């Protein structure tokens, strides 16, 4: 999975546009959009919005979370919280990236917004790396990461699953050898092997 695929998935998000033309509804494979009436806002998928905007056929209405105050709040909340906070959109990075690159004029204070969204992403990414570290060094057997968006997951793939594979392999190796030899030593006694092999985990 690379960012272009994440973008492709994110392009299915609905966004409001104000078309400057009138047209019948468009019947697409997954549903119909429209009808378009000049001057009236209508919800369309992001890819269609970007396409129409490139042809100067509409104006994109930025989503309500895409403004300074809301994002400042989110950023503060993200800094304060130990966990990942819920993002206003599942694909906030993709939406921001697409809207701001195709229609910078439709978004007030575009550059500042760009910076703050990047900031939020960076905070979340470093948080992700810290918690991965805590997870690997800790004793936990699973981790729960709510509210993580696709692009953030992408940032640690495939290096994280690969490393976990190796770590698990070496751990198995270590415990297996311990069990083998301890069984060999206690062939007469027979008991106690269970606790011996377990000691590696509960040191």
């Amino acid at each position: 999975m690379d960012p272009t695929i994440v973008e492709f998935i994110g392009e299915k998000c609905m966004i409001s546009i104000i078309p400057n033309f009138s047209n019948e509804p468009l019947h697409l494979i997954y549903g119909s959009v429209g009808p378009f009436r000049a001057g009236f806002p209508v919800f369309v998928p992001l890819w269609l919005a970007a396409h129409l905007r490139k042809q100067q056929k509409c104006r994109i209405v930025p989503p309500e979370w895409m403004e300074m105050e809301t994002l400042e709040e989110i950023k503060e909340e993200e800094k304060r919280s130990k966990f990942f906070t819920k993002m206003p959109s599942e694909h906030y990075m993709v939406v921001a990236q697409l809207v701001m690159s195709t229609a910078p004029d439709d978004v007030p204070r575009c550059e500042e917004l760009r910076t703050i969204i990047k900031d939020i992403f960076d905070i979340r990414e470093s948080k992700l790396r810290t918690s991965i570290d805590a997870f690997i060094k800790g004793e936990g057997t699973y981790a729960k990461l709510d509210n993580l968006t696709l692009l953030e997951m992408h940032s640690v793939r495939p290096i994280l699953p690969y490393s976990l594979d190796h770590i698990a392999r070496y751990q198995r190796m270590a415990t297996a050898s311990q069990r083998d030899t301890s069984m060999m030593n206690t062939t007469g006694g027979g008991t106690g092997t269970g606790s011996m092999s377990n000691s590696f985990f509960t040191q």
Partner: protein
Amino acid sequence: MATDSRELQDLALKHKSSCFYLSTMNYFPNYYSIEDIFVTQEKVECKVNTRLQRMGFLDAGAETEDLEPGRTINLPLWYIKELKVNNAYFTIALPDIYKNVHKAVCEAETTHIELGRLHPFFYEFGCYLTPYDRNHVIGRIIFETLRQRVRHLLDISKNDADSKPDHRLDNIEAKLHDAGVRTNTLYINWLQMSGNNIRISELVEEHQKKRKRADRSDDEGGGGAGGSGDMDMPTGKKPSW
């Protein structure tokens, strides 16, 4: 460690890393992997326990035809690992690196050890030696070392993509590092909207290459038809819907 074969190893590894399967899949030791062959090629110090008749040729310094008990010889790992752990003939002496590292793991920052300099296949070599270690130290060392170093790997692959710390990383780590750098470049390219062309997915591309190769060796008459037409996407711009 065998420094003379290092060049050969490098060459082979470079060739391998250009290979599709290794760049996109996780390494796992298997019979055909060149890394595994290199690891098992390493020499291990063994003490001879019993008199082995007519095996004197194994020891370069031996005067007799037989191998006398008490001598130390270097045997390749692939030979040793086929014997039982507590066989009557040899006792394996563990390499020093795993003893020194143990201290380092416990006392110092793991991220400062130059693993690649210690041994280019630190983890895999240790893995093979684990059963021979009566104190169960090696298994724990390699496990703990990688566990401690993953964060460091994540960080360096994110931050300094161009300066590759060659001698600091073991073979496994270098692969992980490459994977991390690759992810990061993809992300940066996406952010700058520079990689926006639609490209064939790597899987399909590799498949086509194989097919072309097969076609060429087969017969140039009938084979060429499949290779063109709808496959010419890589240079095409993202279609403006």
